[in-house]
């Protein structure tokens, strides 16, 4: 451990640039901004880039509805329906008024909360539409690394030639939210503006976290870690689906998510979402009701990532009893 002439190559942004290239995104380190998680990315973008009174189109339901980031900055949210292939281009086209300043916020990979993976075909349609409508996109890809069955199609950002898409990634969902490390990718001019606001906000993300993130990404350990996570999530997904079949059965409807860790559970019950939420909580189960994501039909978000497998089984079993009025 000599002190002489040791070259320190700490290049987190270069490591992220290399990592993005595997996804088909060509981004120089100068067009990347390190942020303290994807939520800070949304904050910076809403404050610095979007105008008061502008519209943010988004999937409905969406995780974004559970935050007040954009509304607090004077924007309003306009929900677009989804089918099993993702957000509906036709509805987006109908609702978009070209004379207004609007953007599209979308989670193409393993959407939060529905788990839906936008198909390649749908991605092409959306890309064509936004080009025609000159609608900028905010692409949230924090679940993309957690694919379970097949590698997802390329991010929308991979097809972006004109800097029309801002892309958000993070280590929070795939490694640890405790690091507080995420990134925004965009055109260099836009990234510099956001970097200026970031400096005014917190003078940069933690040096230690950035060094740790660099080691994970550049050593190949992150890829190895993802492989192990996938194996475990596959087991968890299987057990969860089996338990849903067994205890919810006809009282619910769900899709098998191809990645991420959410199952969107539509339930058929005389009880309201509020009642099911409260009764579950009384039984020691915390469930996110769909209404926090602006879902009006009775639905709940099931995560198969967090609780111990036996607890997931117990929780779903108890939920089944509650839905049958036996709980």
């Amino acid at each position, binding site marked *: 451990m000599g002190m002489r*002439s040791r070259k320190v190559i700490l290049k987190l942004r270069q490591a992220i640039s290399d990592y993005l290239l595997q996804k088909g995104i060509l981004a120089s380190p100068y067009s990347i901004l390190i942020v303290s998680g994807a939520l800070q990315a949304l904050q910076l973008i809403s404050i610095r880039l979007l105008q008061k009174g502008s519209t943010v189109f988004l999937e409905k339901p969406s995780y974004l509805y559970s935050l007040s980031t954009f509304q607090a900055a004077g924007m309003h949210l306009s929900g677009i329906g989804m089918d099993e292939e993702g957000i509906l281009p036709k509805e987006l086209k109908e609702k978009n008024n070209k004379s207004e300043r609007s953007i599209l916020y979308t989670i193409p990979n393993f959407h939060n909360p529905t788990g839906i993976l936008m198909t390649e075909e749908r991605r092409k349609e959306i890309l064509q539409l936004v080009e025609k409508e000159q609608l900028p996109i905010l692409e949230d890809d924090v679940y993309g690394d957690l694919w379970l069955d097949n590698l997802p199609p390329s991010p929308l950002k991979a097809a972006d030639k004109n800097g029309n898409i801002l892309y958000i990634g993070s280590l*929070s969902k795939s490694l*640890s939210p405790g690091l507080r490390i995420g990134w925004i990718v965009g055109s260099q001019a836009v990234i510099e503006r956001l970097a200026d606001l970031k400096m005014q906000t917190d003078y*940069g993300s933690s040096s230690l976290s950035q060094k740790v993130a660099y080691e994970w990404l550049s050593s190949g*350990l992150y890829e190895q870690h993802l492989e*192990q996570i996938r194996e475990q999530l596959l087991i968890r997904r299987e057990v969860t689906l089996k338990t849903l079949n067994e205890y919810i059965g006809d009282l619910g409807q769900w899709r098998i998510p191809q990645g991420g860790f959410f199952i969107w559970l539509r339930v058929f019950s005389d009880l309201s979402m509020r009642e099911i939420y409260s009764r579950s*909580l009384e039984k020691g189960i915390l*469930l*996110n009701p769909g209404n*926090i994501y602006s879902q009006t039909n009775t639905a709940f978000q099931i995560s198969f990532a967090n609780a111990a497998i036996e607890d997931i089984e117990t929780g779903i079993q108890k939920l089944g009893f509650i839905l049958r009025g036996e709980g």
Partner: protein
Amino acid sequence: MVNNTWSLMGHEFQTNWIENVHQASMSTVQSINIAESDPELIQLSKGELSKEMFPLDRMQTIIQKVGRELLPFGYEEPQGNFETQASYK
């Protein structure tokens, strides 16, 4: 708790400027955020990998490496860490 001007802000006394600052989360979201860290509850919706899946050995190895190779550090570059082959003697 003693109330002072700060403790009143954003609570009952909503001054005009506070409206422009962040809205409080929906009450359900607030209660979920609190309940999410309750270890007694079965977290059936939480969007975080279980502790069982935390790569503790690798994280320890990496943090030890970062510690061994640590040099003085301070404010970071505006866009985040990108030191190109900085040489130290």
